[in-house]
């Protein structure tokens, strides 16, 4: 006999697993990100079924933001910005398949062979209130530690990803690659240095604003870190 809850659970589980699988089987990284989000949403809904309303909704909420950011990064770092060309970027795939299957088999065997305890949640328990009391009560230290870790992460992220201007020009690392060996960075128009007016040629161009005044990059203001353009 199958109850409505069971049906919902299996449906959501199927969505979570299938979309989790499709993440690595689609041609577009943006689609991958949103498939992963779909998997997360399915798991979040399963959490709702498990009577964890806060955790479930918070998962959806958080993963929505995270996957949006992830999609942006995808587009920033990948070959085809819109991500609609076919592609297959895998390595050591056979090993990976074996590892994944083994991991699943091992875990499944563990689940199967273990005598799992059964002390289900009592209906009507104020789980959100309890979570709040736990977070800001006995486990305050843990919670605060997590907070401090996140703060450290923020600082570390900024330090890692900000431009370092110490060993050379500030944008030395962020120039797009060249199209030909030793040539100009892609997408740059060489600066025309006409000596026609004034003729003080010793004035070196400022490294701080390499793109200033270049019409080809008029819209670059929207995206301070313009992705390299591949015209492949």
């Amino acid at each position, binding site marked *: 006999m199958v109850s409505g809850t069971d049906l919902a659970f299996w449906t959501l589980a199927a969505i979570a697993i299938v979309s989790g699988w499709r993440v690595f089987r689609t041609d577009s990284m943006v689609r991958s990100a949103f498939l992963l989000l779909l998997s997360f949403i399915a798991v979040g809904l399963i959490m709702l079924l498990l009577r964890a309303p806060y955790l479930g909704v918070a998962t959806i909420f958080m993963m929505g933001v995270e996957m949006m950011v992830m999609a942006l990064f995808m587009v920033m770092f*990948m070959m085809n910005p819109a991500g609609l060309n076919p592609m297959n970027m895998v390595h050591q795939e056979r090993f990976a398949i074996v590892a994944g299957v083994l991991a699943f088999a091992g875990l499944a065997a563990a689940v199967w062979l273990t005598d799992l305890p059964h002390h289900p949640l009592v209906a009507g328990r104020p789980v959100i209130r309890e979570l709040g009391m736990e977070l800001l009560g006995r486990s305050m230290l843990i919670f605060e530690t997590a907070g401090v870790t996140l703060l450290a992460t923020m600082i570390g992220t900024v330090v890692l990803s900000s431009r370092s201007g110490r060993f050379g020009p500030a944008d030395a690392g962020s120039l797009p690659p060249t199209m030909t060996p030793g040539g100009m960075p892609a997408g740059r128009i060489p600066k025309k240095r006409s000596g026609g007016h004034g003729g003080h040629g010793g004035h070196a161009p400022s490294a701080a604003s390499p793109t200033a005044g270049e019409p080809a990059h008029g819209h670059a203001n929207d995206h301070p870190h313009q992705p390299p353009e591949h015209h492949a």
Partner: protein
Amino acid sequence: MSLQAILLVAAALIGLGLYGALSQKSFVMLLMGLELMLNGVLLIVVGCWSRSTDGDPKGQLLAIIVMAVMAVDMAIGFALVTAVYRKRQVDVIEGLTTMKH
């Protein structure tokens, strides 16, 4: 919806995530694999909390910590990807060959 079923689903997610983390060439896709594994972990935590602890709030706390770990993992991962890209114009794992003595 027994605990076993929940854990099996989580195991499948972890297996898929491991496959992705091992097989994908792009840094970002590697991170997605890790996230999928953490998704399974999250499901395990919440499932065990709901089904076998009498609803002890510490289980929920653990889930929150897992979420924090996910956020940290993503943020640091992207920061590293950005840093690597700045230094070497590389966005796939094979491009980064300097990690040996």
